[in-house]
């Protein structure tokens, strides 16, 4: 399993892929950072990282499908899926190896972005507990999205289509909050509770305020595990029915 993990990591870092995506992430981060700082002069708000994360969620969310789009689609297209599935590795091992490799790349990006808080801490004060909490939630939210992106990639043989569908679903997650705020849904408390329960951004808000709720942790982890399990089932199902 480690060999597959290593190969996946290599395919990210031996190609420009990981670097281009990290650069994009840093660019978005830097852009968000600069605009928030610039707004400080005119607004009464203080600059805070959780606040920035929350308000620029929209941009960050679109990086994930780009990370995951190749995971299974490329294997299928290149015919290397046969090799993986005829190797002594089991399907769960294959899925986990791929998942952890993408999570590693995601972590690499997060570590890179620590440059900004460290820079700030030299010129001002950083509320570390709240920053750690928002990083943690960003990470948990990222892993859940990675698993969803991988699921889409396992359903497609074209990585571009996997990425596009991924973006649409991410957009859908963002829209959940707005959906919850519509009059009709607000007037139906039951539906409202379901919609808001699935809203990732709302959960992020709690983390960003420095509140670490077990409920949110369980939500993100169970969503990730469930989707990973779905990927395994999907691959097994395709083996049985493909022509």
């Amino acid at each position, binding site marked *: 399993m480690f060999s597959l993990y290593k*190969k996946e990591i290599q*395919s990210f870092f031996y190609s420009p892929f990981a670097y281009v995506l990290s650069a994009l992430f840093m660019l978005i981060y830097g852009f968000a950072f600069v605009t928030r700082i610039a707004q400080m002069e005119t607004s009464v708000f203080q600059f805070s990282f959780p606040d920035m994360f929350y308000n620029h969620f929209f941009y960050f969310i679109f990086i994930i499908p780009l990370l995951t789009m190749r995971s299974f689609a490329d294997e299928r297209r290149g015919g290397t899926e046969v090799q993986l599935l005829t190797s002594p590795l089991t399907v769960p091992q294959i899925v986990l190896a791929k998942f952890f490799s993408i999570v590693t790349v995601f972590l690499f990006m997060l570590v890179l972005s620590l440059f900004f808080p460290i820079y700030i801490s030299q010129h001002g004060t950083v509320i570390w507990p709240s920053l750690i909490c928002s990083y943690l939630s960003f990470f948990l939210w990222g892993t859940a999205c990675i698993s969803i992106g991988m699921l889409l990639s396992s359903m497609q043989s074209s990585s571009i289509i996997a990425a596009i569908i991924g973006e649409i679903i991410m957009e859908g997650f963002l829209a959940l909050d707005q959906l919850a705020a519509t009059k009709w849904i607000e007037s139906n408390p039951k539906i409202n509770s379901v919609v808001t329960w699935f809203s990732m951004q709302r959960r992020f808000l709690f983390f960003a305020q420095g509140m670490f709720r077990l409920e949110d942790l369980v939500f993100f982890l169970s969503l990730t595990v469930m989707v990973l399990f779905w990927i395994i089932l999907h691959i097994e199902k395709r083996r049985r029915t493909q022509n």
Partner: protein
Amino acid sequence: MVEVKNLTKHYGHVTAVNDLSFEIRDNEILGFLGPNGAGKSTTMNIIAGYLPSSEGTVTVCGHDIKEDARAAKKCIGYLPEIPPLYPDMRVEEYLRYCAGIKGVKRANIKKEIERAMERLQLTDMRRRLIANLSKGYKQRVGLAQAIIGDPELLILDEPTVGLDPSQVSELRNFIRELGKDHSVILSSHILGEISAVCNRVVIINKGELCAVDTIENLERKATDAAVLNLTIEGDQLAASFAIDGISGIKEVKDIIDMGDGTFIFKIALEDEKVRQTIMSAMVANGINVVEMSMDKPDLEKVFLDLTRKKRSRSKSDKK
């Protein structure tokens, strides 16, 4: 080594493979022959553990491919129709990865890679990107990944497709070499290739077994079907009588009147040596022999006959 029992595979309503049973012995090269779309790749994918069968069992080295997949897969080296290569990896790096996923022990990985590269003459190419290799070399890398870990069974799905003649003959020699200490299943739709390297052949068509036999037996069948064309000039009746008296003739299949006083007798022989007796009988009876030739179907024809028979049978079954 491998036992395939009542193997059946359905894709929805389509039956790709129907009730196949055969076995592969130790250190044997088994040819898997059939026209395109006969179900060769499906069968090989099932034996390799890529696709699950709908019914029936496959046992590799005593391990059931479904129940004990991990142990069974460790005994198999598989080269699919499209070699499973990552174009952005280097040859050595790729082989190291293959050794890793096949569970080769860490201490043996380096040795295994060297062995595979040496055997396929890839040592000079070790630092090259797979994307930059020629088709022939890509195929070699594909074979190298199959033999890594020294599995007892090698499954090669149409390994010579798209190679030039010298590469094909090189590859055949290599497969022959492999057959000395491995069991090999080699699929192809080209009969010449199978008869050049295999000990036994399994012929399938439309997912059904047509024949399992040795090449020698198939060749014997081909000779049995040989027909002598005897063209004579003169009295047809006298010639018929003369031929009837000769022992070693199975039957006279046909007599064709050419209209210009010559007749062609199509005669099935028990033994080719009877030709001389026929010749002298003709001369003794004063019949002019214009031409004498053997119509000898080759293996190709036997193969075609076998697959055609199956086709017409399944058609009449449907009716």
